[in-house]
């Protein structure tokens, strides 16, 4: 098209004297036409093509920015989620440690209490058994004492029954009467 316009301008241009344009090989009419054509082209492009193109580019840019933003948000969310998960895990670990520690303490306390109880029970059993043994020893001693006493009395009866004569009896009676007087 530019070539066509150049040929058209050359055919219709009046002959001029040799000037700077001719020296340079420039046809000023042709140049003006080209400038006008260029301006029209620019105007057309600016009017119809560039806005659509820029709009498309802007939309694309917006889309990319939105996607980028969403990606950032997702990344932030992921980071937050990770931090939250880490925090939760830490809390869970702390809780678990606390529960284990508490369980250990309670277990130790229960064990200690059980040991104390068993110890007391054992001591009580030993004390009771000792007391029972003491009682039985005392009872056995008393029984032995009584039996010995009975045997002594019985033996004395047997011996005295054979030993005491009328004379000895008179003496016994006299002594007892003297004691009364």
């Amino acid at each position, binding site marked *: 098209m530019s070539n066509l316009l150049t040929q058209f301008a050359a055919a219709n241009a009046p002959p001029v004297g040799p000037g700077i344009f001719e020296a340079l090989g420039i046809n000023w009419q042709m140049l003006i036409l080209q400038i006008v054509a260029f301006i029209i082209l620019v105007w057309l492009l600016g009017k119809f093509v560039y806005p659509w193109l820029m709009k498309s580019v802007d939309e694309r840019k917006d889309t990319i920015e939105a996607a980028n933003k969403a990606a950032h948000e997702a990344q932030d969310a992921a980071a937050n989620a990770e931090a939250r998960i880490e925090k939760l895990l830490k809390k869970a670990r702390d809780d678990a440690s606390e529960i284990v520690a508490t369980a250990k303490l309670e277990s130790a306390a229960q064990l200690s209490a059980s040991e104390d109880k068993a110890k007391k029970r054992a001591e009580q059993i030993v004390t009771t058994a000792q007391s029972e043994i003491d009682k039985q020893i005392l009872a056995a001693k008393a029984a032995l004492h009584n039996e010995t006493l009975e045997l002594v009395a019985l033996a004395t*009866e047997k011996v005295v*029954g054979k030993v*005491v004569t009328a004379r000895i009896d*008179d003496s016994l009676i006299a002594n007892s009467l003297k004691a009364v007087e």
Partner: protein
Amino acid sequence: MAVKLSRRRITHYVADNLATGTDVHNTLMQLAGYLVDTRRTKELDVIVRDIEYALAERGLVSARVVTAFKLSYVTRQAIEDVINSRKKSHDIQLQHVVDPAVLGGLRLDIPGFRLDTTLAHTLSTLRTNYKK
């Protein structure tokens, strides 16, 4: 039915009659009849004990002696001396029982006083007092 008399009155009546010696047999028959009639035969032992007390107050002491052997004269005299020292009496009726089970010593019972120095009693005391 006879009038109910107090034990004290019965005792004094019988003791007076026994002390004076007036119709002893009849008095004792009266006592027995009265106790049967008034259904107080269960009080006989207590009444006899009271009569012995009343007689002792009147100088008549009824004593019971238990020994393992027969009493010699000296021992009997000694016993009567002890009774006299306890109860001022002019008449002592000594009832003597020989019981070999007492082993030795004597058991003397007079109203208001008992002396038991028998070996059987001593052994019994040993058994009871020192038993645990």
